[in-house]
């Protein structure tokens, strides 16, 4: 499945001016390594069975989503401070890719939960936090669509990027304490790396974390290229307008 995706990415890389050559090959290698580790290397987990392999995709997706939103936060601050279009582009690209992975977390979560816990959804703090994050950044991207081009859009989205990221710890604690009021089964507590995880599982998880981070950087660089191309077109159009 991943080979088709790689050829697509290759085409783009060849066409774009500053193609992400090295990054593309690294990501391809990471992707193949990850698939090999997940489907061949790691042994099937005893209690959960084969479904547990979803974890090696689900957790990295969640990591990438959080990482992407953190990058949005940093770029938003840098934009308001330095007022350079560059940071706005990075924030936009990162938010869009983060949104993709956040959606993937929300889709794979229930698919994993159903065979293991017998339910699609539980109001576990982590699930709730992810859902609220999805809503915040959906609004962020809609704000970008609603506002016309220019510095107004960049300023407004930077403010939402900052407010949203600062809200994350508060939302985390509120849903954590809220969840503890409802008697719910303690399910995902031993999920963290280290405790109760076999060595080979830890290695596989690390490999897929790395691979997904590379995919994140590749997608962001593609998205940034598109935005820069739009800027170039705008610049040429203006130039043509003024030359007449």
């Amino acid at each position, binding site marked *: 499945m991943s080979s*088709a*995706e790689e050829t697509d990415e290759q085409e783009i890389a060849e066409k774009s001016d500053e193609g992400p050559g090295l990054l593309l090959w690294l990501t391809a290698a990471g992707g193949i390594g990850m698939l090999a580790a997940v489907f061949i290397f790691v042994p099937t987990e005893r209690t959960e*069975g*084969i479904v547990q392999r979803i974890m090696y995709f689900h957790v990295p997706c969640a990591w990438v989503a959080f990482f992407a939103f953190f990058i949005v936060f940093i770029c938003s601050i840098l934009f308001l401070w330095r007022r350079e279009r560059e940071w706005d582009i990075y924030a936009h690209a990162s938010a869009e890719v983060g949104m993709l992975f956040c959606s993937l977390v929300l889709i794979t979560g229930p698919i*994993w939960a159903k065979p293991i816990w017998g339910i699609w959804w539980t109001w576990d703090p982590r699930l709730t936090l992810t859902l609220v994050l999805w809503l915040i950044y959906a609004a962020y991207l809609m704000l970008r669509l609603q506002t016309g081009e220019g510095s107004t859009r960049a300023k407004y989205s930077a403010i939402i990027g900052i407010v949203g990221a600062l809200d994350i710890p508060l939302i985390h604690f509120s849903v954590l304490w809220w969840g503890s009021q409802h008697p719910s089964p303690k399910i995902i507590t031993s999920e963290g790396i280290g405790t109760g995880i076999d060595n080979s599982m830890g290695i596989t998880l690390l490999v897929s974390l790395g691979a997904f981070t590379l995919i994140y950087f590749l997608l962001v660089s593609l998205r940034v290229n598109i935005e820069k191309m739009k800027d170039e*077109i705008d610049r040429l159009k203006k130039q043509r307008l003024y030359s007449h």
Partner: protein
Amino acid sequence: MKNLGFLFAANLAIWGGIVFYVFTLMKRHRDLRRDLDLLKETLNKESSK
């Protein structure tokens, strides 16, 4: 090997999602590239006139 369907569905969602996103990016890239080339061409023609 039970629950293979769930594993398949999750993989389909993830890779399908990523590939779909890459496709939309490619399409946008192609359209923009065409616009850009057209624009450059017209600019060149106008300046040579």
